[in-house]
């Protein structure tokens, strides 16, 4: 989780990722941020997030995104 928070904080350091659950809904993360996160996750976790997983539910919070990474690691 720490690695993920580091990736997110590098993009927007003014967001409280522990509590924020509306990263997409409140337009904090845009499409540029999302593809940057996917590339970083691929680099750090060696997990490829497919395009069909790029939906608000998976990116609205750090927790949801981490759950996605764990799910993809298991598959």
């Amino acid at each position: 989780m720490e690695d993920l928070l580091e990736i997110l904080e590098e993009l927007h350091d003014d967001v409280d990722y522990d509590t924020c659950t509306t990263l997409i809904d409140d337009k904090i993360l845009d499409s540029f941020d999302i593809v940057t996160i996917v590339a970083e996750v691929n680099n750090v976790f060696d997990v490829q997030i497919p395009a069909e997983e790029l939906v608000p539910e998976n990116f609205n919070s750090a927790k949801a995104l981490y759950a996605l990474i764990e799910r993809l690691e298991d598959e």
Partner: protein
Amino acid sequence: MYFTSYQFALFLLILFIAYYLVKKKYQWILLLAGSYIFYAFAGIEYLFYFATTTISTYLISQKIKKVKAKQKEYLKANKAELSRAEKKEYKKVMKSKQWHYLLACLLFNFGILGIVKYTDFMIGNINGILSLFNGEPLSFMNFALPMGISFYTFQSMGYIIDVYRGTCEVEDNILKLGLFISFFPQVIQGPISRFKDLSQTLYQEHDFDLKNISFGLQRVLWGFFKKLVIADRILVAVNTLIGDPATYDGIFVLVGMIYYAIELYADFTGGIDITIGVAQMFGVHLTENFDRPYFSKDIAEYWRRWHITMGTWFKDYIFYPLSVNPRMLKFSNWSRKTFPNGIGKRIPVYVSSFIVWFATGIWHGASWNFIVWGLLNAVVICLSEEFKPFYTWFHSHFHVEGKTYYKIFQIGRTFLLMSSLRILDCYRNVPLSFAMFGSMFTKWNLPELWNGALLNLGLSMLDYIIIIVGVLLMLTVSLIQRKGSVREKIYQKPVAVKFLVYYVLIFAIVLFGAYSIGYDASQFIYNQF
């Protein structure tokens, strides 16, 4: 059959009465029949294109569904015997099968779109090259462009991609799928709907809900007001300005930019208001396509609020798959190692952006002006991204963020920037567009504006008054929308007020509609895309 024709009004009335008279379970069939009749008015031969897209999409969706079902069954039956690696390998093989079906469907349908829309553009470019070597030019094919082909192709291909991704249900009834692809209010200029959204209300049985119908009708009237009273009126001046670039350069280019911004907004949002309103009269909910775009503070925000369904289509089906595919991720890894300090991370995103904006440009039309327009959008968006550290520094030093005057500045800046890019849409000629843009800075003819020139553009003083009142009305409605639905607010008023709104709108359309000053209601701008 244009939305602005009497034929359409009659067609709508007959369909509407029949819709609420037939048994509810047949309502969707009536909508399908109505949609095909509506489309047949554009040309019976075009129904062939429609049917081809529907049948091919249906067949492939069924094939993909079968592969998915087979995979599920096999994994369930062999759950205990298969190792994790074997399961993974099996899934990979089955995914590859689905991918081949999807690819065939995409190539076939985008192939049709490509041939009818872009063949002559390609021939024109080849002829340009041949002329350099004194070669014999090729003949143009002059394919007739089926009405709304860009819209219904995108909608149906969005559906098949969703089926492949497993993010929507597969429709087993070909006629229901046919209705999704052909639903008449949206077929000519969008919005580009997603199956999982539209299917929620498209096939449902609908009661005669007076509130819903009156809301739909109000929206239709508001759309006609924007189109006939504002867009078609100011169109005369726009055509005069664009049609004579030798006379109307310098400050007139700026005037043309602003007039065209008004025309395009009133025309396109008016058309979408009619579309969504008509659908609502039949109980069908369509996705909103605009969110007060001229209030955007930067270009990226503008594109999230203008033609929303097209933007999300390109984002979900081109930008994301392109940006996250293994090759691009490999390129991304290489880029960040080669170009440190952050730029290496952004380069792959910029590459994807340029490809997407090239596609967006050419989607709008088979000509270089649209391609350059698309690429310039990408340039501005990528530059804005690069300037982000500067903006952050500026905001933290001057404490202007959130201040009303700064917001107005940002809105004005975005409006002028987008209007500048639209010059390419106006003149439809790349060198001329750049020359006209340049003339704003080189030819100082501001005083001509005060010499009555604005009244020589085909608009009288009365026309200007009507346009100004219309624009102020649109602005007021947009401002009220920030605090909720305007129609809901009207609904809560006494009956007399509600009817007054109806009468005023109808009265304004009939009396001030541009058809009353001697010309026909023109086609919607977005029909041609």
